[in-house]
Each structure stands twice: as C-alpha cells, then as structure tokens.
C-alpha cells in the first residue's frame, strides 16, 4: 500500500509539474502578422514577407537578396539564396514580440542584441 501511495504521489507530482510547465508556454505567434514589409534601422534593411513564404531584404538602394522564410513558434528562419549561383545561407531570429506595428527579435544564439523592426 505504501508502495502504491508512493506511486500515486509521484504521479500526482508529475501531473502537477506537467500542468505547471504547460502554463509556461509562450503564446503562439500569428504568422499573418509578419506579412508585409518591415524596416530595421539597426540593419538598415527592409524585409518583405510574402504569404507564399517568399521574401526579400534590401537596403535603401534596393540592393538585397531574395529568400524563403518559415516561422516555427517564435523562430523565424530566413533562407537566402543566390540569384545565379546555387548557394544558400541562413539567418534565424527569435521573435520576442510582434504586433501590427513593431517586432522585436534577436538572432538565434546572439540574444544580447535586440533588433526592432517597424512595419512599413
């Protein structure tokens, strides 16, 4: 009996822990909020996110690269590719906040630098 009680308590604690941990999960980011063009003054770049997961970043002189993007929870992955050479390169951002006007994020692995994007 004592053994069963112990198993029960263990299970109860597990359920409580799971319940508590599940409460810590962030709110899921609405990817539709990303659609459109954003400007980051720190990078001096415009980013455009299209609904078909394509996009392009560019500077004020319209020099930039096309990319495809994906959003997995708060992880925004941007896969840029070459225009004539078959080459790809990634940049990933962890979105900290996103609304209609502003997005704050940092590069994956480099959380000390926060970038602020404003919708254009």
């Amino acid at each position, binding site marked *: 009996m004592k053994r069963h009680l112990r198993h029960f308590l263990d299970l109860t604690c597990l359920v409580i822990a799971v319940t508590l941990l599940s409460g810590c999960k962030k709110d899921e980011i609405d990817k539709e909020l990303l659609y459109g063009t954003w400007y980051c003054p720190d990078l001096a*770049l415009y980013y455009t996110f299209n609904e078909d997961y394509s996009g392009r*970043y*560019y*500077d004020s*002189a319209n*020099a*930039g*690269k096309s990319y495809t993007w994906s959003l997995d929870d708060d*992880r925004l*992955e941007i*896969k*840029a*590719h*070459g*225009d*004539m*050479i*078959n*080459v*790809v*390169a*990634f*940049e*990933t951002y962890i979105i900290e906040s996103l609304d209609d006007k502003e997005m704050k994020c940092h590069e*994956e*692995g*480099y959380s000390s630098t926060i970038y602020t994007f404003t919708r254009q």
Partner: protein
Amino acid sequence: MKKLPKTIFKTVGITLASLLSVIILILGIACFLLFTRSGLEKTAAFALKKYSPCHVTLGDSKLTFFKTFPHLGLEIDDIVVYNELETAPTDTLASIGSLVGTVDFMELVRNRNIVIERIRISDIQANVFTDSLGNSTLDLFSDSTDTAEKEPFVLPDSINTGISFDLKEISLKRLGASYIDCQSGISAGVLGANASLKGAVDSLLVGNLKLSLDVDSVCASMKDSVSSTDAIIRNIALGADCGLAVPTIDIDGKLTVDKLGATMGQTNAFVNNFSLKIDGSTDIRNLLVDAAVNLAMGKIGMESDSLTAGINGISLKLDALTGSDSVLTKANLRGTTGPITLAMPYDTLALTTEKIGIDAVTNAYLAKMDGNANIGITTRNMSFSMGGTPLIVNTDTLSLRADAAKDSSIIKCTPILYSRSLEVVMDTVSYISGWPVKASLPLVTDTCFNHFILRDGKLEADAIGIGADADIRLTDSGFSGQADISTDQMSIEDLLAMIPEQYQSMLEGIAAKGLIKLGISGRASMSDGNLDVSRLSADVELEDVEAGYCDTISAKASSLALNMTYPGAMNAPDYQTMNISLKSPDLKADMTGSTPINARLTDVNLDGLVANILEGIDKTEMLVVLRTGNTKASMDTIKANVDNMALGAYFGYTTIQDKQMELNASIDFDALNASIGSMMNINIGPTSVSATSVIDTLQENMLLRYEPNLNFYMTDTRLDGLAVPVSMPVLDFDFNLVKFNIKNSRIQLGQSDISLTGDLYNIKEFLNGTGLMTGQMDFLSDHADMDELLALASGFGGGENSEEPEQEDLAESFALVEDSIPANPFIVPKGVDFVLNTNLKEMEMNDHLFTNVGGEVSIRNGILILRELGFHSSTGQMQLTAIYKTPEPDDLYVGLDFHLLDIEVDELIDLIPSVDSIVPMLKSFTGLAQFHLAGESNLDGYYMPKMPTLIGAAGIEGQNLVVMDNEVFKGLRRKLLMSRKAEPVIDHLDVEMQVLRNKVDLYPFVVQMDRYKAALGGRHNINKDLDCRYHISLLQTPLPIRFGVTVQGSLEDIAAHPLRRIKLSKCEYGKDYRQTKTGTVEEHVAYMKEVIAKTLRENVRQTD
C-alpha cells in the same frame, strides 16, 4: 610692233609706185609730143586722139625759145588725162599745169636726130582710185595695151627720126598725188613733192646724175572692220649722185626724213630724223657690189595705253661686198643706239638701258641665202623692273656674242651672253647682288623657224652652273618638244650664302654643307593653249651632305640621290602617275637633348608613286616603299637594330566609298633586335605586317572611323630580361571588321607555352549596334606554370621594391582610391556571343601538377561565364564556374562556384591557403578532402561588394583523415591516455560556413579522435574592426574535466592583447554536441549545415 612698220612701208610703197607710174605716163606723153615737127600741136592732137590709151586734153601748145634759151623748147599747158569711172570721185587721172621740154635744135635739123636735154614739169596732180568692186581708174592702161597690140603704134614717116639722150635735167615741181583703194581700205596722199635729176647721161648710159627729191609729206591710212592704221611721213629728202660708166655704177646717196609717224588703233609710233646714206658701186659685168650704208635715226617711239617704248637714236653702218655668183664675201655691221626705254604701265613693266652697241660680220651666199655671221651686241646699265612684284634687274654691262651660220635649210647660232655684274632686286630685297653671269645657247633651227635644237647650252651665274639641251618644234597651234636642264655640282654652303641677307634670319640655326647637283628633263607640247606634259624627270644628287638645326638635330649622308619621273610606271590615259625614288648608301640622323635619339640607315632605297596629284587632293594617291639594308636606332636607353626592313605606305581616296580616305601601311623585316637598358632584350625574326584603313570621318568610334584591315605575321620572337624568358615562335592573325582570325599564336613564357587560335565575326555590326559579334577561340597549352605566370604578372604590375601597404592603411587607401580615381570597371560588352575553349594539358601550380585543365569561357548578353572549368591532378580534380556581368558600371555582379574533389588536405591548403585560417587544425591532417565554395555578390564600380547582396557558403568534408605519423602517434598515445586501439585518424570532418551580408558564420563542427572530442564554431563580422567571436569546447577527454576557449574581439585587439581576448571558458557546446543554452539549436544547426552542404554538392559536375 612688227606689223606697224610693215604696214607703213607697204602703204607708202604702193603710193610711191602709183606716183611713179603717173610720172612715167606723163613723161611718155610729153616726149611723144616733143618730137613732132612744126605741126607739133596738130600732130599731138592727132596722136592723142588716135593712139592715146586714155582720154587726154591739151591746153596751149607752143614752141618757146626764151624759157629754154639757148635751146628750143616745146611748152604744153594744161594737160589733163581722165577716165570716166562712175564710182570715182573725180574723172581726172592726172593733170599737168606746164610741161616744157628742150631738144638740140641743130641736131634735129641737121641729122633729124632728137636729142633730149631737159624736161621740166610743174603743177602735177595725180589721182588713182579703185572702187570696192576692183574697178580702177588705171584700168585704161590695160585696155590701151590690148589696143596697141591690135594696132601697133607707129610714128608717121614725117616724124620718123632717131632719138638719143643727152640729159641735163629732168625736174618735177609741185607734185601732188592721191591713191584710194576702197577694196583694201587703203588711202594715201603725197603733198608738195619736188624732184630733179641733173647731170649728163648719153645714149650709152654713160655719165653722172645727181638726183634730188623732197616731199613735204606723205600720208597713208588703211582701215578695215577691226583695225585702223594711219601713217604720215614729213619732210622727206633724198639725194643721190650716180656715176654711170658701164659696167660699173657708183651710187652716193642720202635719204632723210624729219618725222615718220604711224597710228594704229590707240598706238602711236614715230621716227624722228631718219637718215640713210648709201655709198656704193656695182660692177655689173662681174656682178660685184660694194656698198656702205649708214643708217641714223633720231628718236624712235611708240605710245599706247598699254605700252610706251622709245629708243633715243640709232646709228648703224653697214659695209657689204658681194662677189660673183651672189656671194656676199663680207659684210660688217656696226652701230649704236641711244638709251632705250620700254614701259608697260598696266603690267608695270619697265626696261631701260643706256645704250646698245652692235657689231656684226657676215659672209653669205646670197643666191641661197646661206652664210655665216658673227654678231656682237653690248649694252650698259640695263635695268628691268616689274612693278606688280617690284622686280628689278640691273646689269652694268651686258654683252651678247653670237656666231650664226645658215647652210641650206639649217641655221646654227651660238649666242654667248655675258654680264659682269647682274643684280636682281625684288621688293627692296636683293636676291642676286653683283653676280657675273654668262650664258651660252648653241641653237640650231630651220629656215622656217619651226624647229629649234639647243645643245650644250650653259648658264654660269656666280656659284651656279646650269647646262641645258632642248629640242622644240613649233606647230600651227602651239609647240612640242623636250628639254634637259642640269646643273654643275655646286656647294650647298655657297648656295645658302647667295640667299639674300633679309632672309638669312630664316636660316638661323640651320647649317648645311655638301655638294648638290640638279637635273630636269621633260617633254611637253602645247596645243591651243593647253599644255600637255608627256614626260618630266628631275634628279637631285647630293654628296657629303650634312644638315643640322641648332646643334640639336643633325643628319648626314655620304651621298643621296633623289629622282622624280613623270609619268610613272603605272600611268594610264586617265590615271596620271609620278615615280619618286631616293637612294643613299648611308643615312645618319641624330637628335641631342635630354632624350637623345640616333638613327643609322644603310642601303636606303625609297620608291614612291604619286597619282593624280594635279587632279586635287581628293583624287591624289600616294604609295611609298622604304627599304633599308640595316637600320640602327636608339632613344635614350632603348636601342633597335633591324635587318632588311621594308616599310610601305599608301594614301588615297577609295573609289568604293565616295570621298573616303584610304591608308595602307606595311612593314617587313628579316630580323629585329631591340634592347631596353642593359636588362631587357627583344629579338624578332622574319616579320610581315600590313594594314589598310578606310577613313570615314563621319564615324566617332575609332575602329569604324579607320576600319582597319590588318595582316600580322611575326616569327621567332624572344624577350629576355624578364623574370622568365619569353618567346613567341609565331603570331599570325588577320583582323578586319568582318572577321578577326587568329590563325596561329604561340607564346613561351618560361616553362609555359600558350596558344590562342580562333575567330571573331561581325565586329562592325557589333560596333554599329546593328548585330551580334560572335566568335569562338581555343586557348591551348601543353604546359603552364601558373606560379611563374602569376609572378611574372606581379612583376609587370609593380617593382620588386614596392611595399605592401599596412593593413590599417587599407581602409583609408580604399577610401582615397574611391575619392580620387574614377571608377572604371571592366564592362562585359553586350551584343557579344563569344566562347573561349581552354585546354591546358598540364598546369603546374604550387608544386602541383594538374592535367586536362579545361573549360569554356563565354560572353553572352553582357555576361562573362567561366563554365565548368576543371582540371585533374594526381590526387583530385577541380571544377570552377564563375559568372561576371555588368548591367551598369556601378552595379556589377560576380558569382563563383568552386570545387576541389578528392584532394589531399595539404594540397588543398597549398592551393587555397586561406582555408588554413578558417580551419586551423586542417593542416595537421592528411588524407582526401572535398572543398566546396559558392557565392555571389553585386559590386560597385570599384569592385567592392555591396554588402546586402553578399551571400556565400563553403564546405570542407573529410573522411578518415590521418592526424600524424603512426610511429609518432604510438609514442604519444600513452601520454595522452588514449586506448590501445586508438588510431591517429579523424573519422569524419564536416565543416560548413556561410557568408551573408557582413556576417561570416562558421557552423559548429566536431572533431573526434579516440577519447578526445572538441567542437568549434563562431562568427566573424565584416566591418571596420573585423571583430569576431570563436569558441572551442573540449567536449570529451580521458580526464574528468571539460573546458572551452573563447576568442573574442577585433583582429587588431586580439593580436595586441591575446591574453585579454583569448580566455578559458565553460563549454558552450554540449557533451554530445548540443548547445547548452537552447534546447533545439543543435538540430537547427544540423539542418542548416545539411542544407548548405547539400546545396554545395549539387553544384558538383559529375565526371566520367
């Protein structure tokens, strides 16, 4: 000038002849009447009525004694001879106021012999008229002749008696005459003429006569539709004493004329004080004439609007002696003239001379007009000036000596003209100052003066000697002939000294010396004013000639011959050409100064052809070929030596495209050697280059403007003095705007040999923007040493002493460059479709030998692509694809895809040393690796990347990489606490990195060997400081400790403070390669590495 006196004398002659005819007529009638008996009057009337050929009326006829005392005389008054010609202004042909004749009365009575002693006629007027139809008042004489023939005139028996002469006097007083010929427009008149003939001449014509004639004036005029000539002679006086003693006749006479004038149009001519004195004798039996003639004239002048000429007196003396058979044994002519002036106001031409002396000796056969003469003419202070360009010629003494001979139809004359001092001044500048001048012109001509031959003519003027030969024929419309003129060898210094002082300043700095000889030969004809030169040749021969300018430029030749010949060898009726040639055994030219230039040419032979030079520059063509046996030239430290060189050049206007200039040039030589300083030397073997250009001045593009057509062939070229010897066995190509064809080109650069062949088409269409330039070339090499080639290229780019700029100065240098130097990137041409196929059988680089290095370099639509350039080495192969395009000068693009497959790691590091910096431990490995690199970026005009467009990725893969030598490893294995089964092998190496904008990310990768395991990753920023952060986590060791090392900061700071920037830290990567701070990052990293690696591998071209 010549026509006027001829016309005057002709007119006066006709007048005098007419007058003489009338006088003879009157005398005949008078004599007829004189010899009648007592019934003279009746007899005369009867005779006149019956036998006179014309109508004659007589006035009173009477015998007179007192008027003719002591002789009996017959006087008849008012004798009128007339002819009823309707068109004549008067029917009186002649009228005589009084005619008195005396005869020896006693002789008549005793011997019935009429001895005429005196005839006096006075108040005589004669009129001769011819109408426009040719009917003349003198026609009655021709009619009377016919009548006389029909019925011969016979004196009646009663008056048939003898006639003899014992003339004492015949006189004519107050004689007047007129002559009008409407048919020829001639009219003339004589006023106030008196004549007398006194003396004693018997019937045997022996005696002495004294003739005197004076005429107040003789006037004549001749007019037609185009000209008018009037002449007048005043105060004519003629006196002569004749001694008749057959067979000889002596004449001593004098003719004087006060003034002889003539007007022709607007020209007035006159002679004042004309005096002719004849003293001679004739031996009729032996046909000998010995005569002395003195001719003297006062002032002779001619005036018109365009000409004024005057001779202030002429005095001539002629002594002539003719022999039998019409041989003029000797004739001497001596004389002088007064000052002569000639002025043409309109042409401002003037000639004056102080006096002319004439001295001539002649022998002649008068029957054939053959003979010879020696003529001398001298004059003093002769001056000739032309006002248009004020040319003045002065000579103090001018003499002409001429030997002349006529033999049948040939006339030979050798005039020698000599002036002790000749001066030519033009526009106050003295061109010839006091030169002695001598000219000899041996001339042969015919009696019609249609053919002139000059042989060995010579002109000597100071230091100038000129010879001349000519053969000229005059034709009805002009002339034709040939002439040769040559000079003696003359000193150039002397010739230069003869240049007027006023122009000597133009020669300042110019020095020339040597000997010069000129020759000109030509054949020409003129017809109706059109000159046709059928042949013209000019020669200039120079010996020991030297020329210089300001001691800086000098030229020298031992001899030099220049020839110009017209027509040239290629002459045609509508294509006039002239040949030019220049020959010299040696030519030297030097220019001193800061950059001295010297040239030495031997066996110089220049041949040229000029065509249509007289037709205008747009039709002129010129072809020049210069050949030299040897040419040596040097400029500063550059020296060149060329053997058997031929330079050709052509200039003309093409007939294909109207009015476009065409230029051709060519150069051929057997060998050329050139050196630059003491280090660099160039040798070129037999070479031939020719170029043609049609110049279209409307085009702005240089190639379209000149439209070159080039044929280039060069062999056996060798360049010494560079880091490696360079030789070019052959370079053979043709270039024009239709096709650029490299037929053969091979170059040997040290150990490398390179060959380029192929074609380019449609260059003109490409330049015009109307078409696509296409082409294909093959770049081949049996062996290429890239290290040597790159070193050579580096040597070309900078000297050995050029210093590498400090790193810290690079950014500033770039900024300065961008500020100071305009961007001038290589722009890939659009409108080009070109492919370069490369095939290097062997390529040596970094001590590696690569084989079959080949690929395709293409330019299409403004994009330069190196497609799948690859090679094989002993351990691997390379694949390269590169793209370069230039849509805008400030927006360039470059892309690169590069693979080294199955290559030894050390070979990879040798080939790409920067790999060692990215993966430092790589050089510790041996084994096969794969290296992939791909990237692209847009660039600005200075080839600097536009950072937002920069993207790239690289990957290194290796399997079973050996770390170190097995024996060494065994010694370390125990010390490193490795297992006994440990091998010095890295099972797997998988490095991926990417470049995106200004970030270079090295994705974490793991290196594991036995009990050791480490992970490395980090980021490098491409910014001003080039700061980075790399971390190595020692994940697994035999010892229970784990630690990491972090390198962070700018490169400069890390180098300056390594202890501060390189720190021990905690491991950032998990034990089983998981980043510790985020749970799923390693999965993301693994995914991205896999995507990058997969993408890179996709670009690898599969080979057989």
